[in-house]
């Protein structure tokens, strides 16, 4: 039987659309810092791939860029493992047919959501095609990576 994985870090985004790649950038920083101890997955297109990425895990930490109207660079931490999300949040506009939060709710309905799921949402500023990451987002990437690594350590700890 395959060994059950403890935790997976999932960076979500499109590296060709400016701040939208914030999730990917954080995931790469976690990979560089933690090495093979932590599974890191980059979701760059099909969001249904999330269901496979966290299959068998006790915990998943997602990082994605958002545009909620808060100040650029603001970081929101959302616990998705508990109650279903408000439909107003999960039905946000997306260029993909299935949004990451739809994938979370789909997995919850199918009992395929890990018990612990946390989303780090980084407020983006510039999502234009071909744009580079804005200064306000760039300056929080390291601190979010450290916070994500701490989430993982808590899961990996013997008592976790």
């Amino acid at each position: 039987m395959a060994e059950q994985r403890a935790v997976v870090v999932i960076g979500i985004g499109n590296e060709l659309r400016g701040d939208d790649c914030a999730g990917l950038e954080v995931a790469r920083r976690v990979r560089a810092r933690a090495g093979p101890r932590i599974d890191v997955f980059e979701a760059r297109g099909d969001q249904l791939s999330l269901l496979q990425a966290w299959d068998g895990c006790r915990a998943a930490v997602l990082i994605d860029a958002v545009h909620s109207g808060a100040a650029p660079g603001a970081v929101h931490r959302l616990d998705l493992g508990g109650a279903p999300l408000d439909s107003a949040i999960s039905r946000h506009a997306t260029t993909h047919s299935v949004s990451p939060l739809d994938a979370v709710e789909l997995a919850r309905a199918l009992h395929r959501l890990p018990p612990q799921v946390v989303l780090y949402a980084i407020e983006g500023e510039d999502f234009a095609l071909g744009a580079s990451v804005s200064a306000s987002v760039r300056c929080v990437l390291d601190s979010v990576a450290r916070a994500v690594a701490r989430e993982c350590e808590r899961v990996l700890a013997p008592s976790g």
Partner: protein
Amino acid sequence: MSAPRRTRTIRTDYLARVEGEGAMYVELEDGAVRDVRLRIYEPPRFFEAFLRGRAYTEVPDLVARICGICPIAYQMSAARAIEDACGVTIDDGPIRDLRRLIYCGEWIESHSLHVYMLHAPDYLGYPGALEMARDHPDLLEHGLALKKAGNALITAIGGREVHPVNVRVGGFYRMPARAELRALRDPLARAREIALDTVRWTSELAFPDVELAPEHVALRDPTGYPIDLGRIVSDGGLDIGPAQFDEHVVEEQVEHSTALRARLRARGSYLTGPLARYSLGAAALRPLAREAAREAGLPPSCHNPFQSIVVRAVELVQATDEALALIERYEPPDRPAVEVLPRRGAGHGVTEAPRGMLYHRYELDDDGTILDARIVPPTSQNQRAIEEDMRAVVQRHLDLPDDELTLRCEQAIRNHDPCISCATHFLTLTVARG
């Protein structure tokens, strides 16, 4: 004194459960349809322009980026067009087999997504797949299992499931080992069973009695159901080679769309995709898929867009069954690609993307530099027919309140599985009434 005109506008600014960003606008005046627009506002992407000046060998990897759902289709049409320009033909043998096999993976992936996640909620009365999953988790699990089988096929041959990296002009960079493909047999056999079940349950759905007029256009391949090559034929008598596409298909700019709209010269709108493929090529289906279509009660020629969900299910049987047969006979060749030397000239390639015919034309310089490129995706070809379908839907349901009419129009659009991201060089719904 004449009575004041009564206008009614229905608009949806962001269409759900379609690929890409588009809108719909319907304007009614004095109880008649005045204007129907499928607005494609996703920004134009200028692929044809930036391909100019690139090396002919770079094209398959560049055009794969046009679509996250059907990158194989772009790679295959591009490779065929460039090979055509260079005087190389790959019409049989293990390289062609492997091309069909990876293309089967893309059909399985795309059709399972559309049938289960995007289209089924319209028939079962849910706003989306998520709400459907709470009551019908078994259906969603089936859709995900099918999709996973398609993904695995693409990953095994293409190197990764999104924007695969193993396709090149002349063939592949690396041929998979026999054992790598044989490992996919069990999940594909399971996927084939699910596909057969998908035909059964979709055939029992309630379909409105609707027939669309546009001419059906698809490839015809003398060796089987059309995927990767063939002549372009229609139920109106069209029978041309890929090189004649430019002569027969005209693309036009319209103000409300960042996609070009195509029509057949001197004939008008046409429809490409599963309905056309099935109607023109049902006899070429593999026996298992043909029998599944017969048991489902599909007529030999199908013009009802609502039944496209059954046709996609039949094509899922076709793709899974063919994939298993191709794996069974697969022997890696000595070389993964044939040599394709550049030469000055133009080449044409047409293949059947899951959503319909995808045409590429390239003009090469002596050293293989791309001088000119033309790409006509299926959604550009279908846009006029979709708008005509919407117009007929509105005309039939004028008495419905705005919210119900909006839903009918959205369903009519989803029947055609438009891929707006592909078509932009091109969705949201507005209805105006009076």
